C-alpha cells in the first residue's frame, strides 16, 4: 500500500494529477482511494489530494505518513516534509521550490518542470511532466495507463491537447530515466 500526496497552489493542476493517477491505477486493477482537500482547507490558494494505491483493502484514505509526495510549491514542502514516511520520496517542481530537504531519511527528486514545459511550448503541461516523472520513478502505473485515465476523465478534449499531454508525460519520464534528477 502506497500513499501519495499531490500538493501545490490552486491552478497548478494538482487535483487533476491525483485524479488521473487514481483512475489509471484503478484501471490497472489495483485498489485505490482519492481524497481531495475540501472546503475552507482550500481557501488561501492551496490545493492537495491524497491517492492511496494498494493490492489489498485500503483502510484509511488520509495522508498521514505518505510514501510519496509531488510538491509544486514551497508551502506544500513545509507542510508535508515533516509527516512523510521514513524512506519516502519527494518529487519537487524545482522551478518553484528551490530549497533542500531538511530530513535526510527522505529522497528528493527535482524536476525543472516549468522549464521543460516552456520547451514544449505550454506551461499547462507542468503537472503532466511531474506526473510522468513520478510514474517513471515509482513504476506504480504506466504512461499508457495514465493516458487512458486522462482520456476517460476529459472526454472531449482536442487531439492536439492530448498529444501535448502525452509529450509532457514522456518528457517527465525521460528526465527520470536519464537520471538528470539526482
Amino acid at each position, binding site marked *: 500500500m502506497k500513499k501519495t500526496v499531490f500538493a501545490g497552489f490552486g491552478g497548478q493542476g494538482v487535483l487533476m494529477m491525483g485524479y488521473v493517477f487514481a483512475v489509471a491505477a484503478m484501471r490497472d486493477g489495483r485498489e485505490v482511494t482519492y481524497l481531495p482537500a475540501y472546503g475552507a482547507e482550500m*481557501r*488561501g490558494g492551496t490545493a492537495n489530494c491524497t491517492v492511496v494505491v494498494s493490492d489489498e483493502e485500503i483502510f484509511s484514505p488520509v495522508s498521514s505518513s505518505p510514501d510519496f509526495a509531488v510538491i509544486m510549491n514551497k508551502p506544500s514542502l513545509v507542510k508535508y516534509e515533516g509527516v512523510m514516511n521514513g524512506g519516502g520520496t519527494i518529487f519537487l517542481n524545482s522551478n518553484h521550490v528551490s530549497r533542500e530537504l531538511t530530513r535526510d531519511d527522505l529522497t528528493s527528486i527535482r524536476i525543472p518542470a516549468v522549464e521543460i514545459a516552456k520547451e514544449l511550448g505550454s506551461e499547462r503541461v507542468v503537472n503532466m511532466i511531474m506526473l510522468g516523472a513520478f510514474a517513471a520513478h515509482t513504476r506504480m502505473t504506466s504512461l499508457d495507463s495514465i493516458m487512458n485515465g486522462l482520456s476517460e476523465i476529459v472526454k472531449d478534449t482536442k487531439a492536439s491537447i492530448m498529444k501535448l499531454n502525452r509529450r509532457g508525460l514522456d518528457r517527465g519520464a525521460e528526465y527520470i530515466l536519464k537520471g538528470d534528477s539526482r
Partner: protein
Amino acid sequence: MEELVFTRPRYIKKAPFHYCPGCGHSIIHRLVAEVIEELGIGEKTIGVPPAGCAVLAYDYFDVDMGEAPHGRGPALATGIKRILPDRIVFSYQGDGDIAAIGTSETIHTANRGENITVIFVNNNCYGMTGGQMAPTTLLGQNSTTTPGGRDENRDGPPIDLSEMLALVRGTVYIERTAVNSIRNIRNTKKAITKAFKAQIAGLGFSLVEILSPCPTNWKMSSTDSCRWIDESVMQTFPLKVIKDEIG
C-alpha cells in the same frame, strides 16, 4: 514633511485576509472599519458575522463579534441590541445568508424597525460553499447548481430583497452600492456612514446592499469581475438609494 495618508484602519486587526485575490469582502470590511473609526464608535460596536465567506470576519474586525447561525444574523443582532440599546450593532451578511435561508429573519427584523445596521454583500453566488446559485444569481449566470446557467423557468429569477425591504415600515435607509470601482467604493463608504448614523440617531433599520466581486466563483480575473458588475450585475441590481427616510 511626508505624511501617511492611507493605512490600515484602527479597527481592522493586523492579520492577512483569507479571502481570494480580488474579493470584495475585504474591501467592505475595511470600509466598515473606517466608518466605525471615523464615527468614534469602535469601543461600543458589536458585530455579527454570518456563515459565508465572511464567517471569519471576527478575525479581522477589532470590535466585539458574535457568530450567528447561517441566516439568523438579524435575529441575533436584535437580541443584542434590545439588551444594549446604546451600543451600535451591525450584522454582516452574504446574499445567500440574507436572501435565502434568512429571508424571514431579515424581513421581520426590518419590519420591527430594529435599530441596527445590516451590511449585505451581494456577490450573486454562494461563495463559501463553492459557487452554487444564490437568490441573487443573474439569469443565465453559471453556477454549480444551475447547469447551462440560471433559467427563469426552472430556477426562478433573481430576487431583489432590498426593494422588498423598502416596503416595510421599519426601514429608514436602504441603498445599493458596489465596490467595483473607486467611485463606487467611495459611495459605498458614504452609504455605510449614513446607515450607521441612522442607527446612532436611533431612527431604525438601515441596510446597505453592496455588489461585490467573487472572482473565484465567477471564474473571472479581478479586473474582469469589476467590469462584469458594471456591465451585467447592475442591469439586474441597479445602484440607487432605495429608501431614505433619514431626511
